């Protein structure tokens, strides 16, 4: 088991945002969390990556408890988050943005290898290597954010809404690349509003509703569930 989340409770002040969330991610999987706005999807990811502190509950990564580990240490353990809204560093060049992703690593040759690997997944980034991050289009920024997340050579990549604000063609391309990255050996935990698309590439899925997991199972089973169909897939 790569990631085990057990009975996680997270609060924003008095608001009980996650109410006993439990799920797990196996090595090599793509797992999706779907749910409406405010269901707690992003909160879950932010808690795993250490940006938020859970009040109770445990998060085990490779069998090690990480729920109280600070964010900067969690990156070193092999979890990398691609934050919602991309959050690339606008005044840094594409190369510098990618180098930021490798901040925790020291071996220059290995970093260069990772960069070449990112360029093989995202050839567009290579064309724009010395361009400032802020001058990229939305799709390219998403590619850059994802590439930056891969630069720390994570075993688990947390993707928060990669399709946000992108045209349908670009969404398809991004999801194709996510699958590719997964096939190269990176486990992926995906949070998406675009449930149909996310379920089509995932192995398993969990449905979150107001801070609780209400449904889980194989991605196609979840996609077939009549409740999910009416609530999230609009069919």
């Amino acid at each position, binding site marked *: 088991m790569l990631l085990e989340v057990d009975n996680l409770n997270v609060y924003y002040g008095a608001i009980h945002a996650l109410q006993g969330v439990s799920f797990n991610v196996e090595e090599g999987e793509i797992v999706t969390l779907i749910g409406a706005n405010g269901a707690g999807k992003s909160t879950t990811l932010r808690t795993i*990556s*250490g*940006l938020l502190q859970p009040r109770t509950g445990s998060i085990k990564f490779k069998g090690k408890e990480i729920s*109280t*580990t*600070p*964010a*900067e240490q969690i*990156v*070193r353990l092999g979890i*990398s*988050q691609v*934050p919602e809204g991309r*959050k*690339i*560093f*606008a*005044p*840094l*060049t594409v*190369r*510098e943005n990618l*180098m*930021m*992703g490798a*901040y*925790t690593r020291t071996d220059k040759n290995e970093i260069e290898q990772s960069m070449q690997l990112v360029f093989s997944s995202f050839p*567009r980034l*290579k*064309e*724009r*290597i*010395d*361009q*400032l991050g802020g*001058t990229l289009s939305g799709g390219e920024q998403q590619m850059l954010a994802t590439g*930056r997340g891969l630069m*720390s050579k994570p075993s688990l990549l947390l993707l928060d809404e990669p399709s946000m604000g992108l045209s349908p063609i670009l969404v398809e391309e991004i999801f194709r690349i996510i699958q590719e990255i997964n096939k190269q050996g990176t486990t992926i935990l995906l949070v998406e509003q675009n449930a149909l698309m996310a379920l089509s590439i995932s192995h398993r899925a969990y449905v979150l509703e107001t801070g609780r997991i209400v449904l889980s199972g194989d991605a196609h089973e979840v996609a077939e569930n009549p409740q999910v169909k009416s609530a999230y897939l609009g069919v």
Partner: protein
Amino acid sequence: MEVGFLLGSLLKIALLLGYLYGLLRVMGHPKLWVKALGVLAAFAVIQVALTDFNGFKLLNAFDQGLLFQAATMTMVALGLNLIYGFNGQFSLGQWGFYGIGAYCAADITYRWVNGDARGFLVVGIGIILGGLAIWGIGAFLKRYRGIPVLSSFTFYILGVVAAGFLAVKLGALLNPLFAPLLGTPANPGPLASGLALQVVFFFAVIFAGAFTAEISFLFGLPVLSLGSDYFGIATLGFAIVINTLMVNSDTILPFPEMKGGRGMIGIPKLTTWFWAFFFLLVVIILMRNLIHSSTGRAIMSVREDETASRAMGINVAENKLLTFVVGCFFAGIGGAVYAHYIGFLSPGTFDFLVGFNPLIIVVFGGLGSMTGTIAASFGWVFFLEGLLRVLLSQMGTEAPTWRYVLYPITLLLLILIRPQGLLGNVEWGFLKSVKVASRQKEAGTPPTGDAPQSIQEGA
């Protein structure tokens, strides 16, 4: 007369900017011997201009003063640009740290030439012990998570105070070993003259920088966790506290030689052009190498987005503290160099209102542009002090007051016309990121497919 002077001054500013451009260009040259030769030539040009040839000097005493003032201002402003421009922490305390550096170094050398080695010994031992205490406590606290900032601050301050106490005792103990070799001002001993004095001066500057850095660490630790605006107010408060301490340095502080509000006189004038140039280069090189390192990218990414930075594995609080300490170190160095040029320190020089000058220079030159800060420091000193003061004084005794009208108007115009600052993101020669330039050539293949040309290619 006025027109001639005006043109002459403008020419001087233009020549200086050309000089800086040339210096940075040659420092960025890939060949080491060209670099060394170029830097040497740059040093020599000013050295010759400052030399007296039978009463003829290319740069008169007034210009010389401006030159040294500009060099120290560059160090202070570069430090502030690191804190504010690159890291996004709005600090108004830079001037206070500048003052700490100035008084600290001045006290060391003043005591030294007056037959008292305690300044040198106490500060030297103090910063080493204090540094060790900070490092040790830091390593100890790292083992625990979730310690409130104020608790760790208590540990640090206790450790540093203990180190300081020990340093004072040790200094008093070791002083008799040195005192006989120092002599008196009228009859300096072997350690208080010639090369030995130069070495002491060099260490006094470094000590002053390190002392300032440790003070800034203790101050920054609790205060940096405040939001940016509150941090600005706190640093302003700090500058005022420091200024008040300077005014009362002979009454509430045990430093009668600083003479409080009357000003400290008799500081040995040890800053030659060699030292000013040397420390200026050191600060520029340190700054440039820091910015173009992985830590430098981390510093900039913290300014852009703290959440994303944490997700990259950056310890944001540590990063801010490091930046603040390095920036204040530069201010301390600048202060030390200034004190030994001017030979006289008055609390009025370190008034918090004057402390806005480095801030104005940083914004004027462009936030996050090292070249902009360097150029603006030189340009600003020569414009405000050189050009306006002399030019306006020829129009009547009251006229120089007008420079504080003309100068804000200039600032306003610049902000309206070029909000990104004088130079924006442009960096000259040495300060550019070398790696990017070389990789660009290496990856010279044109982009394929239907992708539009990237805007920076070939630029």
